[in-house]
């Protein structure tokens, strides 16, 4: 089965006052049709830049591609001109953003914001686009769409705005929907609704989703596969079961440990001590070495290669080298409190 999207060795850097910041350093992943891939990491891990670069939305300059390729439909998006990209954005790949309060144009009615893409990509008439807009609003669960479509964003609540954002993104039946922290700015109850909506929509339209998040709880609910990013690199990928039940990277352990658990009544949430590396001066070796409780001398100076643990799971960690001491995942990193044995 051919891949819908293949990202290979993608590197993105920013020129700043303090020198060049290497936000994304050789990221490789792919996306199948109709699947949901979650990219997980804390702020500054490069996940949002990666997502935005797929649509070439990273402002350049100061940003620039420092290598790699993004192959979609057998064509490298890195090589495309801006004009060519306009034909892909919104039509083949579309995106929803973190904060629904600021990501809709305040001076334009919702309907017009939906129909813009339709008129551009599908040559629809204004009337047809308006009707399709009503359908889309109905699809994303906005009551009274005939009336709502002519309203402005400030007349919508936060959750409804995010629904409207999804309607905008889905307008032209894109093959890939990139959701950049789509639930972070919302109330917990609304978060679940939005995630459900995205899943329903995926079933209905068959679009593949790249979900960017820092919240493993969201991942468990929504994704098929997970890529864990740290310091501009993907440190571990696998399907949801592998990441949750058989994680091999100490950073993934840390993420899992810091997640609240349903049965862990009075258990303390474990923070990962320290802060992410300064990507203006990235570490030579593993980016997590400075915060890793199992770090070895080798970690400081050499970046580990990926170890293929299964068809789907790859982990970049020196602990998997045969010369390294055997280390077990800590108790706290076990989902549901029980270790799942292979």
């Amino acid at each position, binding site marked *: 089965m051919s891949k819908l999207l293949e990202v290979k060795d993608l590197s993105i850097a920013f020129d700043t006052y303090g020198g060049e910041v290497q936000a994304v350093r050789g990221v490789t992943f792919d996306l199948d049709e109709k699947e949901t891939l979650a990219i997980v990491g804390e702020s500054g891990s490069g996940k949002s830049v990666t997502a935005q670069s797929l649509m070439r939305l990273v402002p350049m300059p100061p940003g620039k591609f420092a290598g790699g390729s993004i192959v979609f439909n057998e064509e490298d998006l890195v090589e495309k001109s801006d004009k060519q990209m306009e034909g892909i954005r919104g039509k083949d790949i579309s995106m929803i953003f973190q904060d629904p309060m600021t990501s809709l144009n305040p001076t334009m009615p919702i309907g017009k914001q939906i129909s813009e893409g339709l008129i551009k990509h599908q040559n629809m008439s204004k009337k047809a686009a308006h009707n399709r807009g009503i359908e889309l609003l109905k699809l994303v669960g906005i009551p009274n769409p005939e009336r709502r479509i002519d309203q402005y964003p400030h007349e919508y609540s936060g959750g409804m705005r995010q629904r409207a954002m999804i309607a905008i993104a889905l307008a032209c039946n894109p093959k890939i929907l990139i959701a950049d922290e789509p639930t972070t700015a919302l109330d917990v109850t609304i978060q679940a609704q939005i995630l459900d909506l995205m899943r329903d929509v995926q079933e209905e339209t068959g679009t593949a989703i790249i979900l960017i998040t820092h919240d493993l709880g969201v991942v468990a609910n929504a994704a098929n596969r997970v890529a864990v990013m740290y310091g501009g690199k993907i440190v571990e990928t696998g399907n949801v079961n592998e990441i949750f039940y058989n994680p091999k990277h100490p950073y993934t352990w840390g993420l899992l440990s810091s997640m609240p658990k349903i049965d862990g009544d009075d258990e303390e949430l474990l923070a990962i001590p*320290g*802060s992410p590396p300064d990507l203006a001066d990235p570490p030579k070796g593993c980016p997590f070495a*400075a*915060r890793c409780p199992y770090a070895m*001398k080798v970690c*400081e100076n*050499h970046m580990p290669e990926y170890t293929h643990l299964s068809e789907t799971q790859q982990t970049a960690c020196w602990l998997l080298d045969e*010369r*390294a001491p055997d280390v077990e995942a800590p108790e706290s990193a076990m989902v549901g409190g029980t270790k799942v044995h292979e």
Partner: protein
Amino acid sequence: MALPQLKDSDFEPLQINDEEAEKIAGESTSYWKDAWRRFRKNKLALFGIVMIVLLGIMSFIGGPISGHNYFDNDLLNANKSPSGEHWFGTDNLGRDIFARTWYGAKISLFIGLMAALIDLVIGIIWGSIAGYFGGKVDEYMMRVADVLYGVPYLLVVILLMVILPQGLWTLIIAMTITGWINMARIVRGQVMQLRSEEYVMASRSLGASNTRLLFKHLVPNTMGPILVTLTLTIPNAIFTEAFLSFLGLGVPAPLASWGTMSSDALQSLQYYPFQLFFPAFFICLTMLAFNVIGDGMRDALDPKERK
């Protein structure tokens, strides 16, 4: 796989220093140090400062080094073009324009600085009282300011200049009588905003007294926009003075300001354009200098604007 050559010893555990791990990358700098660093990078603003310093020095030594003073008439040498004797030429009464220009600099800078200073004092008192106490006090104080603000500034100044006896201080008073309102609004806005901010709450909950709060937290944090407004008040005052002088409402003779000099030169613009050129040039230069300093300070002092 081409693994690097590694020794077994490389796989020994690494001692991590917890403190090291918690240290935040990048040097932390204080607000003012940071602002100064950014300001220094702004070549235009530095140019502005150099210009103002030069103008300030020249306003004191310009007259003496020319060998002339600003009020001696010499009708035999009236309307002379710039020469070795009169570097900027002479005006219609034969007065040395070079000496008058620097004397005018003194007057213009003095008016600008005084107006800004008075605005600052009244504005800070009015604005910080209104902003700090809020509620009814604030409402009444700001209502007064609103009414005054509604009347065009220059119109008020002109009306005042009409009824008050002419003089340097009259001019300054006329300019500041509604000029402080802008400053008061800025100060109030700052204080209001800061009053509700979390770190004030934090330091209050830690038991900081009101005075300490005011001087340790509120004042330093409101300084940025106030300094910027102050800097931009100066060119505004200089402009107003020149404007009034142009209307014949400026400083009375024999005092010379750039405004009166330009106004005088206007009558004979067709024949002696140089008489207008010098005062006009220095008005523009001074306003430019203060404007670029103000802009530079705004960029440097407003952390939200950091790029």
